[in-house]
């Protein structure tokens, strides 16, 4: 069952990603980008990391995708014009893929079978965030604040 689900999700995700990478219309690309993230969070659900999956949907579809479409909107006089595709990139990407696959095949510990895992409750994550990972949490908070302010300043009207 879960392998079936896995195959379905993998196909969905990869095809959505490919669409996002290659579709000519920027808006379609952005939307399929969102779909790809649905797929990724489906993966997470499948592996029992529900919380991460939900966060993924929440952040990417709720925020990042909207941001992207907004940007597309704000720069839309350009959307039609910018086209063009370099095959060099494709070559590099395929080369890297090959390298990665080869490396994976050469690595030893890949035969580990998925063992039974107790579901990771939100409470546990919360406790961990507040105990072991409290400093990273603070740092991320600072980072987000900085990013917020920085983004605001970047998009302020240039005084000419």
């Amino acid at each position: 069952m879960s392998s079936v689900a896995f195959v379905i999700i993998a196909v969905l995700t990869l095809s959505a990603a490919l669409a996002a990478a290659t579709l000519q219309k920027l808006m379609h690309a952005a939307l399929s980008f969102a779909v790809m993230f649905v797929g990724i969070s489906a993966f997470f659900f499948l592996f029992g990391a529900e919380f991460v999956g939900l966060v993924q949907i929440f952040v990417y579809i709720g925020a990042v995708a909207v941001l992207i479409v907004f940007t597309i909107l704000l720069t839309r006089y350009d959307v039609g014009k910018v086209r063009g595709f370099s095959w060099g990139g494709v070559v590099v990407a395929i080369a890297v893929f090959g390298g990665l696959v080869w490396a994976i095949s050469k690595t030893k510990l890949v035969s580990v079978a998925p063992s039974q895992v107790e579901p990771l409750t939100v409470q546990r994550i919360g406790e961990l965030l507040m105990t072991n990972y409290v400093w990273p949490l603070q740092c991320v908070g600072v980072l987000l604040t900085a990013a917020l302010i920085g983004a605001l300043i970047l998009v302020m009207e240039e005084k000419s």
Partner: protein
Amino acid sequence: MNSWITSNVWLIPAAPIVAALLILAFGKAARREAAAFAVIGQLAALTMSILAFVPTLHSHGFRTVQNFTWFTFGEQSLRIGFVLDPLAAAMMLMIALVGLCIFIFSIGYMAEDKNFSRFFAYLSFFSGSMLGVVVANSLLLLFVFWELVGLASYLLIGFWIDRPSAAAAAKKAFITTRIGDMGFFLGILWLYHQSGTLLFYDGGHGCLESVALSAIGSSVTLVALLIFCGAAGKSGQFPLHVWLPDAMEGPTPVSALIHAATMVAAGVFLVARVYPIFSVGAVNGVTPSLTVVVWIGVVTGLMAALIAVAQFDIKRILAYSTVSQLGLMMVSLGVGGVTAGIMHLLAHGFFKALLFLGAGSVIHGCHHEQDIRKMGGLRRLMPVTFGTYAVGMMALSGVPFFFSGGWTKEEILHATSHWPRSHLPYYLMMIGVVLTALYMTRQVIYVFFGNRRAASEHAHESPGVMTLPLIVLAVCAILFSVVLTPAWPGLESYLTGHPADFDPHLLIQPMIIVSLALVGAGISLGIWMYRRADGIDPLQQTQPALFRFLENKMWIDEIYDRTVIALAALAARLSDWMDRYIWDGLVRGVAAIGQFLAKLTTGADERVINAGVDEGTVGAHGFGRLMSRRHSGQIQTYLGAIALGMLALILLYAWLG
């Protein structure tokens, strides 16, 4: 209860200095704040001095010192500290009280001045440093405060910078005292070299205590005399007295503060403080250094008194009287009457401040006229000033029984008469006393009696803020005599540490009669001479030559001009010439050689080195162009390069293991 103050004496000088800083911080616009800060600071100092004074009363020979290490060089550390003993406590009390009166007085006196706040900053600064001198327990710290006092007096005397005379006077005061301080500093160095410490009291190891004193040995006389140079400079003793009268250019409160109460007293205080050094190896109270002190004091006292007789500037008269009184104190110190000297110092502080402030009030009333010939008949116009001034005059000329000055003078004469070396100082001092009474009478008659003259037409009594301090000081000058009577020598016992007991028989003794006679003679002589005094001085009529001699301060300034200053100018010209023609010549020669060498090297530079560098840069430029081709500015190219690099790393890693 007030142990905290005995262990934190430094707070007392700190208060006014903090006030000064605050005033400076607030700027010249804040006039009332300035006055408020200054008075509050002084008030704090006064309160703390009283608190510090109380415990010294309770126990005889009370002394607390706090020493601490200032800094350490090599293996020996320089230690400074603060001391609280009867001498310091009494001085502090006097300085703080008189200072407070003067501050309040100057609020009225300087009311129209545009640099009001600056003035108060200087005043507070001065009084802070003076208090510092008093409580210092280290000759070095004392010297530091001493120099601060000098600086403050410089600023204050030259306060009206726009007057050239004031600037000149300030410079004169500064340089003259500096001459003395040079000797003082040499003395300090010598003392440190001999005894290895500059602390006065250090649990038996201070430089005023037996161990160190014995260590100094034979050179003690030299040290003492060098230190006395400083004292002479500050308290205007004979060779270095010239700055004091000129310093009258400063505002009158300044004159009161500097030349009555505090600064000039510093010299006397210094001698009293380091008295052990002076009196090392004394055979019945006589040492060479002390002898010098005596004769200097005698000469100063007599000379100043004589000059004072022939002055017309109301403040100059007081200034010369100050000089002569200081001479008197020096004499009494020299002859061993330390307590007498200090007592006179304290008493003098009160009544001389009173006199100066009175003079200030008169000047203020007469619209800044200082020539006594133009005054007169002010008795009616300025009753309060007159009354207080009269009190001061009595005290100064030493009328016995009621006025503090009388007792102290009598004590000093008493001490002088017992000097084994010779009796000459005694007789000269007597003449001095007569003269004192004489010129004070003259001044009072000129200013307050007789018919009105030019300046006194529109004279008016000064405001309460000025008369109040006068009254306070007058009361002090009278009440102070209570602790001075030989019948119950409270202050003496306090200073020396011997218990005092009441003995009315001591109230009448020959010396009192003597001084009474002297003072009576002086006053009556003065009244007789100046009874119908007017624009022109009777002495001038009878003895013109003598009078001119005295009026021009015995030509001392001129003599200095001819001798010392001329010598200095000559030396300056000489060195200038040498600088111009000899040293410059050398320098120019060296420069010429340098230029020649430079020419040589430039040739080499252009031919050899530059060429090489040029070639190098050309090559580098070419290489850079070659490289910059690769630098396309395309993000994606870079990204691809990064990806390939990562791929290479992965492959390498996987291949290796």
